[in-house]
């Protein structure tokens, strides 16, 4: 697939911009801070409805404006679809498909698929587990948009259960204090928790119910992630070997909190088995959860462990190795999406400047045959010769054809 037209209103630095795009390679070149990343970030947003740079949407709206609009005309198998997103920070986004409003913005996911490489990718290897969880979950959504719902449901169960655990925690602490001073135990705890009417009995009986729902929704997310890691593994190995021939082998394993410490992988992603396992683990840790007021077991606490040979990548891999690993993960995502059907749009935001000559060349060779490749670079020399194609000059917020 490819994006044939992009139109922005009040997105980032752009009051308004219209851009014709074509299949093949297009490079956006211009000094830093001129708005190159802003353009490709908008395209990424159409695909994932989130930015690769910021967690919240507010910075995406031009300073002083109330909302941003991104329109992209997406061509897939010779069919054209116009996707329009209205970004409303703090409120629900709105979406239209071919001018018809969709009931939820989420329903526009899956119309455009992108794989975006950016300097921020180094965090996939060096950063917190949340970076790797997001990598996996974003890819799940790109492959099957219904996972946006699975993810949202899971987050909501987590929030509900968290609120309940905090009440339980307050009840317990209030109980201790209460018994020392001889006050009415439960009443005091409720006052402290700020919940007028949730008593201790209520809390425990409903915790069982939320456990069941957490386990069910968690198992769906967890099972999908386990399957995804299996599908990615050979592709990551292959991509890494191509980027850094002769280097140590890459190792990838999913570390799930559904397993007890030291326990081996269950060897299955069967949802029913995982549901039961999560439920059992929740019971095991319940005391600690009530003590701390947080959910300690579930996919929101898991990690994707990355290693090179016998050593973990995080903390051990060199800068260059970390880059190769991050690129290999993105390339594997690209291959996987490609194998599902249509070529995703490849976006390479300012990455070539970060790489040595060998990695640069190998990356360029791997991506140049994609249906559409969008590259940003500060200077023309940062665009590898293998990636010749259209050029746009980006300067002071205006985008012009140029070479």
């Amino acid at each position, binding site marked *: 697939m490819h994006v044939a037209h992009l139109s922005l209103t009040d997105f980032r630095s752009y009051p308004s911009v219209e851009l014709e795009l074509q299949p093949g390679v297009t490079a956006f070149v211009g000094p830093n801070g001129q708005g190159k990343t802003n353009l490709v970030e908008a395209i990424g947003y159409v695909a994932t409805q989130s930015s690769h740079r910021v967690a919240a949407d507010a910075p995406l709206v031009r300073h002083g404006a109330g909302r941003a609009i991104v329109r992209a005309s997406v061509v897939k198998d010779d069919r054209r679809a116009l996707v329009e997103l209205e970004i409303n920070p703090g409120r629900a986004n709105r979406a239209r498909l071919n001018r018809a409003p969709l009931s939820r913005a989420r329903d526009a996911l899956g119309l455009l698929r992108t794989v975006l490489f950016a300097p921020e990718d180094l965090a996939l290897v060096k950063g917190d587990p949340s970076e790797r969880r997001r990598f996996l979950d974003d890819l799940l959504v790109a492959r099957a948009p219904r996972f946006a*719902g699975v993810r949202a449901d899971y987050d*909501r169960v987590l929030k509900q259960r968290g609120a*309940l655990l905090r009440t339980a925690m307050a009840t317990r602490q209030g109980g201790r204090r209460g018994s020392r001073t001889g006050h009415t135990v439960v009443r005091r705890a409720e006052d402290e928790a700020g919940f007028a009417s*949730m008593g201790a009995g209520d809390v425990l009986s409903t915790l069982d119910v939320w456990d069941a729902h957490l386990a069910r929704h968690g198992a769906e997310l967890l099972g999908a992630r386990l399957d995804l890691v299996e599908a990615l593994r050979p592709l990551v190995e292959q991509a890494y070997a191509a980027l850094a021939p002769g280097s140590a082998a890459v190792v990838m394993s999913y570390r799930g909190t559904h397993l007890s410490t030291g326990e081996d992988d269950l060897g299955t992603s069967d949802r029913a088995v995982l549901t039961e396992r999560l439920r059992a683990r929740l019971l095991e840790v319940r005391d600690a959860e009530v003590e701390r007021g947080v959910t300690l077991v579930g996919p929101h606490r898991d990690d994707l462990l990355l290693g090179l040979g016998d050593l973990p990548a995080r903390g051990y891999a060199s800068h260059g190795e970390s880059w190769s690993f991050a690129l290999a993960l993105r390339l594997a995502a690209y291959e996987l999406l490609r194998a599902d059907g249509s070529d995703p749009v490849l976006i390479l935001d300012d990455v070539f400047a970060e790489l040595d000559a060998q990695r640069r060349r190998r990356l360029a060779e791997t991506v140049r045959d994609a249906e559409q490749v969008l590259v940003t670079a500060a200077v023309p020399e940062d665009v590898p010769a293998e990636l010749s194609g259209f050029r746009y000059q980006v300067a002071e917020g205006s985008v012009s054809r140029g070479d």
Partner: protein
Amino acid sequence: MYEGVVQNLIDELGLLPGVGPKSAQRIAFHLLAADPADVKRLAHALLEVKDKVRFCRVCGNVASEEDCRICRDARRDLHVICVVEEPKDVVAIEKTREFRGRYHVLGGAISPIDGVGPDDLRIRELMTRLADGQVTELIIATDPNLEGEATATYLARLVKPMGVRVTRLASGLPVGGDLEYADEVTLGRAFEGRRLLDV
């Protein structure tokens, strides 16, 4: 911030569901500019509804007498109770003409974020209704979202040991939404295809 009484009105309006600070302000200034007779009628309607409308002592639905119209209707099936979150859900289900039993209105769903637990819902009243063994089926028609599902599970666990058949509306209802937004045909079909709820 406006002068005392105006700000009071804005604050009170802002407490209503679906009314944010901006709308509250807009409504307040609309009322300030409106014809005094119109405002009086609105105020009267507000007071009257509080005065005359009450909740059915059996099912919790809105009623103009002690018991609601449905609970008083001798033709309704005494063996089936349909549990809903709000009175508006009763209206939605009545429109389908699929259901001939009686209702039980919980007054919401379990939602720890909002501080709502089972004791805040009319669950004890439901248990009392089930105690005499006359009811053989409980249809749980809470909203098809997480809180509605959690409430359904909670009720099923509570009621199953009493030997009552517990069913849930068939899927096909728009997930994540409100029961009242389902169209009549879909809701009617969901009733026909209700399934046993496993705990």
